[in-house]
């Protein structure tokens, strides 16, 4: 049986958008998933809405709903269209996309909180598998959530949990507390090793059970996030500046702008014409490809990242960039085209 969402995808167009029933369905699912993740009590900034101080703010939910619709339907439209052409419904698809939307926003806008939770989740899963702990109150296909409880002893299930202040005091008393705080917000082995130490410490100190929420909340609070932006070197800012001077711009992050494929092909030909060594030409091709990819993906163009991807030094990349620019500048017509506005990656 066709559902409203499926019909919406089949008849997708801007003229009828927004239809209240579709926004209502997506809104309900989004709401319940935010609730499952216990995100309502956190400020909207953790999901990338610093302009709203609370979810009670007018329009705060509208903003996240629009972004969610964009992520779950607009940006994955082709995939959904294929689905509805082969199956009866695409609802499950859209709902999974909504979960992925929240994952992405949490990871992007609250990376330390996201990392701490995922580290705790990974460690508890392992300890549960090996029988070291028991987990109760699993949600959403047996997943660890904030309300999940972790039982550390083999004896009867404890009915009451230690106060948050007790958890806090015990963890703060760990002899490696400083080191733990330095690493716990890093998603990976180090962070997970620290979480395991903390849990073991709780057990040693006689804690029989705890709520995941209490552990996560304290670790988040204790490891105050220091926003370490990747330093913008002069080279990188020059790079971005020069690129924008070439009028390669995205218009408001929507679809867009230049005939990137045409530009790509054109500069490729210029590179091939060069009398340079094969290796240099190959490097130029790689640099061009990386720049065009980043442009299409709306990513920042940073020398150090590109150098890392290509496996060359930043100074080499800088020299190549100068050469590439000189080639691109011979393509004035193309750059004029690029300056028009929206970028469209055309079929190459």
């Amino acid at each position, binding site marked *: 049986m066709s559902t409203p969402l499926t019909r919406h995808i089949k008849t997708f167009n801007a003229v009828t958008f927004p239809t209240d029933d579709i926004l209502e369905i997506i809104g309900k699912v989004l709401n319940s998933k935010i609730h499952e993740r216990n995100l309502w009590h956190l400020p909207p900034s953790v999901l990338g809405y610093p302009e709203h101080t609370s979810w009670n703010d007018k329009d705060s939910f509208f903003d996240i709903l629009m972004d969610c619709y964009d992520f779950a339907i607009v940006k994955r439209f082709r995939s959904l269209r294929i689905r509805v052409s082969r199956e009866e419904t695409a609802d499950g698809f859209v709902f999974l996309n909504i979960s992925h939307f929240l994952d992405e926003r949490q990871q992007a806008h609250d990376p330390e909180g996201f990392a701490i939770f995922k580290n705790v*989740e990974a460690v508890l899963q392992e300890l549960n598998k090996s029988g070291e702990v028991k987990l109760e109150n699993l949600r959403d296909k047996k997943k660890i959530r904030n309300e999940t409880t972790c039982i550390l002893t083999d004896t009867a299930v404890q009915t009451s949990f230690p106060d948050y202040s007790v958890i806090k005091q015990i963890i703060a008393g760990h002899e490696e507390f400083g080191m733990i705080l330095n690493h716990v917000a890093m998603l990976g082995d180090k962070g997970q090793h620290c979480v395991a130490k903390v849990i073991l410490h709780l057990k040693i100190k006689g804690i029989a059970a705890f709520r995941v929420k209490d552990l996560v909340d304290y670790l988040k609070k204790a490891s105050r996030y220091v926003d370490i932006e990747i330093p913008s070197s002069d080279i990188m800012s020059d790079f971005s500046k020069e690129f924008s001077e070439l009028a390669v711009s995205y218009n408001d992050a929507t679809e867009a702008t230049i005939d990137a494929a045409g530009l790509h092909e054109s500069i490729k030909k210029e590179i091939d014409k060069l009398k340079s060594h094969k290796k240099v030409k190959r490097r130029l091709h790689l640099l061009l490809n990386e720049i065009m990819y980043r442009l299409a993906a709306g990513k920042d163009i940073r020398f150090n990242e590109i150098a890392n991807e290509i496996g060359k030094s930043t100074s080499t990349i800088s020299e190549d960039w100068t050469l590439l620019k000189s080639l691109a500048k011979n393509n004035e017509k193309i750059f004029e085209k690029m300056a028009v506005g929206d970028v469209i990656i055309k079929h190459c």
Partner: protein
Amino acid sequence: MMTKDERLEKLRKQITSVAEKNKRLEEALHSRKKVPERGDIYLFDLKAIPEDVAVYWVILHRHPKDSNLFYTVPADTNPLEGIFDVSIPHTSLFGSLALRLGQGLWLPDNMFHPSQRVGMVEALFIDRAQFIMSRIAKNEWIGSKMQQATESNPDYEEWMEMFDQVCGAMITYREKQLVWVNADKKVAEGVKPYIEKAREWLLDISDEVLRKLNDILIPPIPELLVLRGGTVNQCVSENEKLYLEGLKKDAPLLPVAFRLLRGKVLEIDFIWIEKRPAIAPVVSATLKGVAIPPEDVSWESWDSKIQVLKIRNCTVLKREKEQAKSLIRVRTDYQTLYIDILPE
């Protein structure tokens, strides 16, 4: 900060743009060749894929030595990106996709049917994916910090476990396809002497017809097979003529009738091949370029659906045991098989 109306207007623009993009993609697919090409996206119906997940297969490149093989990687719309994943941005024709480079497989061309092609990825993105593949192959690729962190994300681990199962199902599916192709070719070889005979006796069998006959001998369900020769000879009785013409019309591909001309009378014989001939003997086998002695390689069992390749005393394989997957190449008289070996 945008107003409500501005937000809605922005989204409307995006919807228009996506609808146009979808149209362009349809046009691009329509004008593309039917045969698989680099950048093509296929969708296979594999049972291992959970109901609400779509796993696409994207062709990255053709095998340099065997043009019938394509290196194909699975892809999906989950934004989680590990070290061996490459994301295709939403600005591409198909929209957001994550290519899982670490799970790629060589797939033969006969697995790609035009009806399963659902999209394509632009050369720009395929070029980049190939470059990253080359760095992975040289062990030079470490990915970004974010990608490294994602590897430790339990959601990602769970997602990739699902992918392992999907790839396992794809390997099984591919092996079945390879077995069928191999079997069909063997059957074709088995009936070749009869075709040669028919060629001597039938006036109208040209090389072209012979080629077509060979093509015919890759049937969808090759359980029973009969050969049919060329057009009806004037010596044939009217009834036989009608019968033969009817046979051709009703079953242009199968069954195929084989005729013998004796004197001035055409006899119609049917060669029913009910049992497949033994599988082709192995000519040579290598694993990652290291030769495996031919006497250690054999097809241990064979029935209409399954063939088992056994390799004995193979130190190369023992060394490779720890590896997640190893590619073994086996060359027979008729074709080269590429087989992944999974650890025990």
